[in-house]
């Protein structure tokens, strides 16, 4: 045991004396969570739009009023001819132009149908989509208001309610993702680099010739990273609760346990990577390309898994991060207990055992 403490102490010296790893360990999580929380978002807020009102009557004025009163849009300018539409888009002044047809009110009252044209700048398709939806919603609610008195028979009314994230805050979606990525990065990449570094320096050989058993060496290298990953997880949760008002509906204790499980999954991946790579460079490349990239793309962190092509959906099942994100969302947003996430937990657990078994096997082959 005393040997072990000496070993862990040495590991902390390595970490704290290397500015680069310190930055990855502590700078990155905070930077990422703030970045995703504040800057990268797919909500729309105060989008600049232009209005081309060919009819300029009471109804169009009322609609425009409603739109400008919402916090989603601000009316940047009024356009008076068709040619200008192209110009405002090209200048990049606005993201959408709203065109009301001539005699809007007259058409509406006489023919029961009037047309409004929403033109959006679709260079960013997601935003364009959201803008269209928001504007349709505003116009739709206006329509309902004016129809209140007239009795339409057989009217189907769709009412939607967004549960678990009623304000559709994208930060709520990103926090579980960022937490997953960071824990993966710290646990898998940093450990695989630190183990291969010993190989590269030749100190691994010295350790293997010493009375320390190989598994003691590996555990000794991994423990500091478990510790640091837990700190990271705590920092991320605190930041998301206090800065982004992210709710944690479920049990914090369960959240902690699941996080430790995922940390161990990632560490076992890190160990596996270190058994197949001889240099720090290789370990880093494998971690980044083989681990981080699929984790970001296929875990459902940024792109919803349900809208992926089938083969990718199948592949996403072998990404540990996918399951952890489901667990995190379950606990933080839905407030569910283990009864609802035992399947995901079991999958992560199984993956961990598999990675550890594989590492042990590879390790033995190497020693032969």
């Amino acid at each position, binding site marked *: 045991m005393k040997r072990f403490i000496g070993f862990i102490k*040495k590991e902390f*010296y390595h970490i704290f004396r290397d500015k680069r790893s310190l930055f990855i360990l502590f700078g990155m999580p905070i930077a990422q969570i703030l970045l995703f929380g504040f800057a990268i978002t797919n909500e729309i807020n105060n989008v600049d739009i232009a209005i081309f009102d060919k009819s300029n009557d009471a109804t169009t004025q009322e609609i425009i009023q409603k739109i400008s009163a919402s916090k989603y849009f601000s009316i940047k300018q009024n356009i008076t001819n068709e040619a200008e539409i192209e110009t405002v888009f090209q200048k990049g002044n606005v993201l959408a132009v709203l065109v009301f047809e001539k005699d809007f009110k007259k058409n509406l009252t006489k023919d029961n149908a009037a047309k409004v044209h929403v033109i959006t700048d679709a260079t960013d398709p997601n935003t364009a989509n959201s803008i269209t939806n928001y504007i349709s919603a505003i116009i739709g609610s206006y329509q309902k208001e004016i129809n209140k008195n007239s009795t339409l028979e057989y009217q189907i009314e769709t009412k939607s309610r967004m549960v678990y994230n009623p304000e559709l805050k994208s930060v709520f979606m990103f926090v579980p993702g960022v937490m997953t990525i960071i824990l993966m990065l710290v646990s898998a990449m940093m450990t695989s680099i630190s183990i291969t570094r010993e190989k590269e320096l030749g100190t691994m050989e010295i350790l*293997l010739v*010493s009375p320390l058993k190989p598994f003691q060496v590996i555990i000794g290298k991994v423990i500091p990273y478990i510790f640091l990953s837990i700190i990271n997880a705590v920092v991320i949760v605190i930041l998301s609760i206090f800065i982004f008002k992210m709710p944690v509906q479920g049990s914090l204790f369960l959240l902690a346990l699941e996080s430790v499980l995922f940390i161990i999954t990632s560490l076992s991946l890190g160990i596996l990577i270190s058994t197949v790579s001889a240099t720090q460079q290789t370990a880093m490349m494998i971690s980044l390309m083989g681990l981080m990239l699929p984790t970001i793309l296929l875990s459902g962190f940024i792109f919803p898994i349900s809208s992926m092509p089938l083969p990718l959906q199948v592949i996403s099942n072998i990404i540990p991060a996918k399951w952890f994100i489901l667990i995190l969302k379950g606990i933080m947003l839905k407030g569910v207990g283990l009864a609802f996430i035992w399947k995901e937990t079991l999958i992560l657990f199984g993956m961990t055992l598999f990675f550890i078994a594989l590492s042990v096997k590879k390790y033995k082959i190497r020693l*032969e």
Partner: protein
Amino acid sequence: MKNNNVIEVENLTKKFGDFTAVNSISFEVKKGEIFGFLGANGAGKTTAMKMLIGISKPTSGKAQVAGFDVFTHPEDIKKNIGYMSQKFALYDDLTVKENITFFGGIYGLSRAKIKEKRNELVEELGLEDIVNELVGSLPLGWKQKISFSIALLHSPTIVFLDEPTGGVDPITRRQFWEMIYKSANSGTTIFVTTHYMDEAEYCDRVSIMVDGKIEALDTPKKLKEQYKADNMNEVFLKLARG
């Protein structure tokens, strides 16, 4: 283990698939001896040494190191040997003192013992000025000496040196051999692989490996007589060229 042999090897063989890296070698090393283990690159000397230090399992044969069987008790062997690699592997981002403490610790030395050994080392090697410096900032010669001293920290029966003088200047090499002699005189057995044939002359006995087999094994003097050579370099060339 009979008389005072600390290493006894009999028909030791290591195969990697179809390739035989070490082909049925046999030899003994006596206590306090400086045993030179020579061979060209790829002759199998590193593989042979790895089997003796317990990090590679032999395919067949028999071997005892420090009284323990390499097949059944590699862990006991590890406690009784020291090892210094050709990279003089120390932790660059730890100070000399921290390195000594760490390696002493993994060999299970008590804190008091480590302190005592450390003070001894500092005095012997004249480390007073650099004991709190990071190892990374030291010249290679210093790393070599410290690395060797650390391999001896737990007073092993045998110390294995894997090409311990690569990349250092002749004066440092000379000083290093003085350190080797000193510890051999105090009863530590030295098992050393080297490329430098002039160093082979310093050994009590040398074995020369060619293609996985030990082709010659005797004192440098007798080998020179046997092969009618002026120095070990000629002996080696005659053997290696067949």
